[in-house]
């Protein structure tokens, strides 16, 4: 097996350029899916039934993991402060429990409450929008 792994430090790449440096993304997605499922289940969440969205988000996480070594949420800002960035490592549900339980989804929508059948009907509301914090 010949896998090429190029680690680029401090190079700001455009998103499409990361394809050239990815390890086998499909294998990594499958592994992430396996680990995440075990974590979010007991929290009352499951993967979104929207498979296209799920695949896209997992791919973005693989890209982020290749860049930073850690699969961060594809929809939240990295603050370059360890304590803060740990709060957006996927799955970040425990750090945003009240908010995500209220909107029945996590911020990027990778996970939804177990009873959700139509994820398109779940708007992306901020904590303020649902009278939290």
């Amino acid at each position, binding site marked *: 097996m010949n896998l090429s792994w190029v680690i680029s430090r401090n190079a700001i790449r455009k998103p499409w350029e990361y394809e050239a440096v990815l390890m086998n993304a499909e294998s990594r997605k499958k592994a992430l899916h396996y680990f995440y499922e075990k974590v979010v289940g007991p929290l009352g969440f499951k993967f979104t039934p929207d498979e296209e969205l799920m695949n896209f*988000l997992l791919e973005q996480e693989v890209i982020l993991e290749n860049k930073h070594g850690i699969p961060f949420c*594809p*929809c939240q*800002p990295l603050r370059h402060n360890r304590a803060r960035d740990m709060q957006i490592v996927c799955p970040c549900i425990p750090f945003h429990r009240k908010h995500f339980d209220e909107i029945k989804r996590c911020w*990027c929508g990778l996970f939804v409450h177990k009873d959700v059948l139509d994820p398109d009907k779940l708007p*992306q509301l*901020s904590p303020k929008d649902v009278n939290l914090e």
Partner: protein
Amino acid sequence: MKKVNMYTLSTCPWCRKTKNYFTEHKIPFTYIDYDLADEATQSRISDELDAVGATGFPFVKIDDEFIMGYQPERYTKALGI
């Protein structure tokens, strides 16, 4: 004409949808992809988000109003269209 500026991420599908909304409604807007910006810009945006307690993208500013999250109905209302 309302001024529309947004902070987004190149890795976020909701940010893409947000940009599409304004494009389709033919509303001009400016945007910065936070993850592709330089350190100084990221720091500035991070401070701006903290000032209003925002924690996620997309972050859309329509004149003085700001909306966190992909919320097309609120955009429509804020734009008055």
